[in-house]
């Protein structure tokens, strides 16, 4: 009974619109009491068993929360309803819980079990919502439960639940940062997810939890690029911003060699990526493969991954979402070659027609961009014209942009535009316009006089503020060339009678004082007038009067001596101590007395020194060190959580880290049975997540600068579209091209059959062969400038070469999904692109060439034998270290192993540290180089707790610390082993070596020879491998063997001591062969030394990683010639 009556009361109350019975101020006492009463009613309603009552109560509670009123005392009553069957009640209870759980932790725990049950629900949406609420309850005690729930959800079947898991990660992190490591594991797992639904959310989690772990992105980079267009808008923004940062750490500055890019050339074979020019120059000198010589001409070639990012983000400039457009714009601004940045201008100008808040942000960014890249926005000058209806803040920003855009050719237009602005009613804006005119005048010499005259005219303006602002600006301009403008100064002197704005008066006085020699007659008169009004002036004016007096006294003491003293006397008794101080100081300085110090001699020099003209700079200058589009950029100050945009690396880190392993590629081919089927699929799912509709056109989308779509997809509708487009430009006729396509298609089918017939054939071996083919083709293409496709069709081994393409594409994508597969296939340009492009602008060509080379064998598809040897080695490791898997072996230092000093005895205050590369496999992580470190304690006391701290590593590099040494007694030494993954680069690993009292900064830089481990090959294998690493991967060098090393034995010894290689048997006694593979990526390194007559010899290194190769050549050369 009571319930229903209460309900009715409440109903009446709530239905009368608004909230008359809820006081606005819960703090006032009267309302408190009624509050209690009302809450009792609500409690009763919540306790009832009618859903409608509960719902009504919850609605009103939520309304209270929305208005910011306290409803926390209802917690126990509400929490009981968490298991309510009614979905809406449940929802509102969730809202309530999330709001108040933090305050009522104990009671909140009552609800946990409901969510835990929800997490196991068969319905994915219920699982997701349970996780969402559970993770939103900020109660520390449930951290382990949340952790478990997130982990489980991260491997849920439903992508929607996985997305929710990604959302939950930052929630947990903010609740308990201790969980970071575990959360990173989850992030790593989710990053590998292939659905668009998850991508945006997990990158967001990545950015919040571990933005510094850029290495986690490597393997997912290409996938993220390819998924980008299908990710929802907000995710796109986050991903693009993150990838901008990533690209800055991984690729080379595309604008580094602009001049060199201009002069064109042929194909550049060199993977730009890590080319160290010096090395090249050293080695290139004489005999090098033709390709290498070509490479020298082209020091920079864009990494294909870099190109991929630019290409895949460009369509997003057409997004309706301003944030996405801005994100792409900043990406292009920070990452694109200069010539390509222009594409963003139009899109940004479009945003200017959006809401004023959007305009505000965009203009801020445009202002920064116009300083660096003026040309980009010049065609859109008129879009920045100011309308009288613009808000002042927008006007001022547009003015800034217009000023930045001003140059000799457009200045007259801009000045005329400015003229109309000066008539505006908005005075702040007028003042800003005058400032802008001043800046144009300083920047563009030609119009300085015009501007000055214009400003002088403004001096007779009726508005005092306009006059004052003009005076200030004129003052700055006059400082640049005072002698020519004494009449302006005279004119201004007259203004002192009228202008009352202190700043303007002060500016005039300063000008007269500074250039008193140009106006010798007027200056004393002005001082006279000023002396009269001195006591009534503002402080800044007073200071300038004193200043004027002092200067006049020094130049024209006859006329002004008395005046000056009068002024100084007035100032002496001024109320402001600054003015009193200044007067006292100036009197001492300029009035010669017997006591006056040495300085007074220099008074004239001090006062009348030539002052540099002020530089009128844009406030947006140098703002681009903040990532554009960021909050920090807008504020011009670092906001919390801002990730610095790193500088470009000197040399690019290893690009192969982005390669993704392929699990089984052969079955994929059998899957795509026929063209028809694929077509059908296309109709069903026309575009989303489907690569077909997408991939082809992605390419054709920017067919101007980019390549058309790829090889196999040529048979698809979309692909053929782009293909035919290309063919128009091709030298070959269109028909021929089409035929070719058909042929290609047939070949593909044939190939499929072949695949089926011998499915057991090791994939890698096949790829071997085919990549060899490809090499051939490439070289061929390089020599005679003919289309790759054409040559392909004539090639006797057509099928193989087409296969090679597909194979190599698979290399880079691990995707087993057939659609995905095709997508990648399509995104790799076929070799014929090269030709087409090469006819075009040379620069474009260079960028594309690289795409062409992407399919060169990557480490994951290194040939069979290397796989074998790899596993063999690990097997052996496993055998030898069964007991102490985690304890890496140390070796006794022998003479053959070179010791390097890490810390000298003296700098280390008695602690000496040396290291050597033990050349033992580092068992905890086969991708690491084992570094043996020897500590020697030369002090008389114990050194305690030796360990490593704060490694500062190049991205991608990893370190496995040695276990802490607890005690090192005086006079003793100890050996430990640590592992470092140098990422196949010779960059140093920096870290701190700590004892219990001190920390030392040390670094370990590996010689290139230590970055590899021996590989065991037979002679035949060696030859085969070598056959594939030709062209640009081969570096040979003639040398004259040193006196002591003419025997084979010595050569072997020298080579193996320089580099960690194993010997490969060889039939010829004139030749010695060695093989190894790099530790981090497992790329093969082959070394051949062939002795010629006398002391002559030929050293050949074949290595896919050209930097490693060139450096190794250098090192071995040195070892052999000594």
């Amino acid at each position, binding site marked *: 009974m009571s319930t229903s009556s209460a309900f009715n009361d409440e109903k009446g109350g709530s239905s009368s619109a608004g909230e008359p019975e809820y006081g606005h101020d819960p703090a006032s006492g009267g309302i408190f009491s009624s509050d209690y009463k009302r809450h009792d009613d609500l409690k009763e309603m919540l306790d009832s068993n009618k859903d409608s009552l509960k719902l009504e109560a919850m609605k009103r509670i939520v309304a209270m929360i929305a208005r910011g009123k306290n409803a926390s005392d209802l917690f126990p009553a509400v929490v009981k309803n968490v298991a309510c069957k009614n979905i809406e009640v449940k929802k509102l209870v969730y809202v309530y819980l999330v709001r108040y759980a933090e305050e009522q932790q104990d009671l909140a725990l009552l609800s946990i079990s409901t969510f835990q049950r929800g997490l196991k629900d068969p319905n994915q949406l219920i699982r997701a919502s349970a996780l969402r609420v559970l993770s939103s309850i900020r109660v520390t005690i449930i951290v382990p439960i949340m952790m478990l729930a997130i982990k489980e959800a991260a491997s849920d079947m439903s992508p929607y639940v996985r997305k929710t898991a990604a959302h939950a990660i930052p929630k947990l992190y903010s609740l308990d940062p201790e969980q970071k490591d575990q959360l990173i594991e989850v992030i790593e797992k989710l990053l590998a997810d292939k659905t668009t639904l998850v991508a945006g959310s997990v990158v967001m989690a990545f950015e919040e939890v571990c933005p510094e772990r850029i290495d986690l992105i490597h393997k997912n980079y290409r996938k993220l690029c390819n998924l980008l267009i299908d990710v929802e808008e907000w995710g796109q923004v986050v991903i693009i911003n993150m990838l901008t940062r990533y690209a800055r750490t991984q690729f080379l500055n595309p604008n580094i060699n602009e001049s060199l890019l201009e002069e064109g050339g042929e194909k550049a074979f060199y993977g730009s990526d890590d080319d160290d020019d010096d090395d090249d120059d050293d080695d290139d000198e004489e005999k090098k493969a033709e390709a290498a010589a070509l490479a020298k001409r082209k020091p920079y070639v864009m990494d294909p991954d870099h190109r991929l990012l630019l290409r895949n983000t460009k369509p997003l400039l057409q997004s309706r979402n301003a944030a996405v457009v801005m994100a792409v714009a900043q990406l292009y601004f920070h990452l694109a070659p200069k010539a390509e940045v222009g594409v963003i201008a139009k899109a940004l100008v479009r945003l200017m027609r959006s809401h004023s808040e959007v305009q505000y942000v965009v203009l801020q960014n445009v202002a920064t961009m116009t300083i660096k890249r003026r040309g980009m926005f010049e065609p859109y000058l008129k879009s920045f014209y100011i*309308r009288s209806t613009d808000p002042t803040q927008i006007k001022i920003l547009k003015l800034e942009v217009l000023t930045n855009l001003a140059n000799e050719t457009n200045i007259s237009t801009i000045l005329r535009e400015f003229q109309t602005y000066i008539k505006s009613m908005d005075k702040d804006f007028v003042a800003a316009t005058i400032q802008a005119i001043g800046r144009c005048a300083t920047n563009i010499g030609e119009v300085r006089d015009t501007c000055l005259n214009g400003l002088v005219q403004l001096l007779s303006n009726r508005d005092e503020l306009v006059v004052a602002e003009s005076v200030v600006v004129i003052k700055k301009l006059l400082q640049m060339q005072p002698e020519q403008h004494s009449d302006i100064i005279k004119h201004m002197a007259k203004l002192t009678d009228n202008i009352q704005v202190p700043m303007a008066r002060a500016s005039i006085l300063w000008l007269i004082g500074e250039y008193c020699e140009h106006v010798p007659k007027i200056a004393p008169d002005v001082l006279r007038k000023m002396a009269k009004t001195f006591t009534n002036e503002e402080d800044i004016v007073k200071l300038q009067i004193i200043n004027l007096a002092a200067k006049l006294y020094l130049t024209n003491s006859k006329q002004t001596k008395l005046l000056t003293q009068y002024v100084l006397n007035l100032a002496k008794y001024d109320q402001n101590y600054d003015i009193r101080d200044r007067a006292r100081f100036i009197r001492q300085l300029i009035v010669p007395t017997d006591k006056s110090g040495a300085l007074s001699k220099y008074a004239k020099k001090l006062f009348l020194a030539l002052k540099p003209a002020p530089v009128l700079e844009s406030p947006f200058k140098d703002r681009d060190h903040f990532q554009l589009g960021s909050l920090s950029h807008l504020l011009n100050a670092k906001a919390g959580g801002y990730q610095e945009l790193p500088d470009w690396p000197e040399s690019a880190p290893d690009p192969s880290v982005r390669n993704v392993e392929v699990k089984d590629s052969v079955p994929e081919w059998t899957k795509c049975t026929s063209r028809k089927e694929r077509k059908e699929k296309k109709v069903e799912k026309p575009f989303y997540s489907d690569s077909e509709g997408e991939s082809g056109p992605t390419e054709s989308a920017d067919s101007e600068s980019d390549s058309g779509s790829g090889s196999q997809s040529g048979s698809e509708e979309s692909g053929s579209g782009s293909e035919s487009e290309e063919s128009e430009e091709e030298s070959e006729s269109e028909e021929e091209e089409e035929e070719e396509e058909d042929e290609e298609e047939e070949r593909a089918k044939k190939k499929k059959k072949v695949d089926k017939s011998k499915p057991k054939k090791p994939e890698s071996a096949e790829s071997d062969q085919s990549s060899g083919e490809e090499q051939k083709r490439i070289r061929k293409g390089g020599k005679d400038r003919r289309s790759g496709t054409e040559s392909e069709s004539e090639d006797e081994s057509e099928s193989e070469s087409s296969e090679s393409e597909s194979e190599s594409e698979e290399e880079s994508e691990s995707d087993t999904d057939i659609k995905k597969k095709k997508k990648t296939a399509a995104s790799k340009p076929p070799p014929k692109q090269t030709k087409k492009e090469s006819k075009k602008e040379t620069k474009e060509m260079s960028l594309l060439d690289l795409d062409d080379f992407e399919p060169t064998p990557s480490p994951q598809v290194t040939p069979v034998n290397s796989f074998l040897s790899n596993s063999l080695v690990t097997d052996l490791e496993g055998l030898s270290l069964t007991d102490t898997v985690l304890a890496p072996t140390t070796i006794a230092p022998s003479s053959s192993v070179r010791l390097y000093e890490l810390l000298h005895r003296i700098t280390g205050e008695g602690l000496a540290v040396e290291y050597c590369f033990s050349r033992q496999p580092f068992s905890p992580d086969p991708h690491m180089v084992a570094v043996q470190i020897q500590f020697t304690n030369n002090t008389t006391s114990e050194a305690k707790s030796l360990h490593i701290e704060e490694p500062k590593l190049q991205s991608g590099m990893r370190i496995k610390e040695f276990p802490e040494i607890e005690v090192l007694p005086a006079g003793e030494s100890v050996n430990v082993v640590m592992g470092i993954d140098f990422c196949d680069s010779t960059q140093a690993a920096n870290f701190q070596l700590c004892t219990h009292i001190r920390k030392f900064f040390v670094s370990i830089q590996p010689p290139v020879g230590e970055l590899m481990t021996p590989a065991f090959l037979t002679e035949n294998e060696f030859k085969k491998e070598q056959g594939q690493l030709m062209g640009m991967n081969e570096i040979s060098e003639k040398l004259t063997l040193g006196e002591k090393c003419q025997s084979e034995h010595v050569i072997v010894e020298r080579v193996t001591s320089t580099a960690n290689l194993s010997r490969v048997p060889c039939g010829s006694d004139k030749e010695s062969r060695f093989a190894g593979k790099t530790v981090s990526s497992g790329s093969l390194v082959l070394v051949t030394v062939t002795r010629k007559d006398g002391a002559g010899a030929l050293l050949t290194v074949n290595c896919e990683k050209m930097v490693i190769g060139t450096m190794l050549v250098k090192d071995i050369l040195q070892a052999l010639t000594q």
Partner: protein
Amino acid sequence: MIHSLFLINNAGDIFLEKHWKSVISRSVCDYFFEAQDKAGEPDNVSPVIRTPHHYLINIYREKIFFVSVIQTEVPPLFVIEFLHRVAEMFQDYFGECSEVAIKDNVVIVYELLEEMLDNGFPLATESNILKELIKPPTILRSMVNTITGSSNVGETLPTGQLSTIPWRRAGVKYTNNEAYFDVVEEIDAILDKSGTTVFAEIQGVIDACVKLSGMPDLTLSFMNPRLLDDVSFHPCVRFKRWESERVLSFIPPDGNFRLMSYHVNAQNLVAIPVYVRQNINFFETGSSGRVDITVGPKQTMGKTVENVIVTIHMPKVVLSANLTATQGTYTYDPVTKILVWDIGKLNQQKLPNLKGSLSLQSGAPKPEENPSLNIDLKIQQLAISGLKVNRLDMYVEKYKPFKGVKYVTKAGKFQVLTVPSHV
């Protein structure tokens, strides 16, 4: 990302607050009020305000400030764009985005905000999805709800979230299948006193109202797509098809949405539909001024120009206006100093004219500035750029839909200067 949201009306009342992470006291809004005071006009409040511990990013829409609280780095446009999306969603749900509508539907608003952001990161911002989660209020439903106590929360959860087409709900069914497209163009122009075009460009949008059953796949093509200089699309549009064939190919969301926005370059001569002859003078003596304005049709492609309104921001010293209009009515607001002349339809035979005197504050100097005229107008059945839809095709679904295209031209920022040309 977005920590909290406060909705503030013009009077400075915080009438709604929502927190996605822990609660932030509403006293943080004091910084906003301070900035608002300093700015004077709501338009001039900086969209980003810095406070010692937070950043406030705000937008002003429909007389409401949406003030969001941010704690760490986030792209400001991300937040601004999101806040506008919220406002649009209110508009979509309640027909208007006003304080009253929000207060009346506070529970739905709260549920919406809850769904749109998770931990400050946007979750569901597509209207189609949200409408499946939370049903928009209708008179009928609210009546039924009060009687039966049932809810406005969707019983089944949306499938769109899970599908590959996140903007369209599944299982759409209509008895009348129809698809309407409105091509709306706005002319932005600055004309000088003599009628010369200083600057002109055309902004266009294609708004769609598509009520088709199932999963239709539409293709919309133009007679003259090359006119379009710059475009932006709803995410449903397949960009590559556009790039390669210049057709819009898409699976539409259900209901109303903006398919694309475009821009027609100033290089293509923009037809200016009206001309304005005007004379606004202020006299040195006598504290008065004179107004004489005539508006006439120019390049209208044979269509009638309607809804013509001339708005003039007068200088501060203008106290009142004593004018005669041959057509339409005029009003002068002495507080805001805005003169509005509502003309209506333009008549070729008898050109509307507004003539008379202004009285100025006595003793005040003659105003320096020349006010400019803002023109509003509307032309039905005409896209001033000449853009024409060629055809609309539907694939996948079998039924025959009813199709329609409507063209409208409006004045955007259309200004006539009262000073001579400077170009």
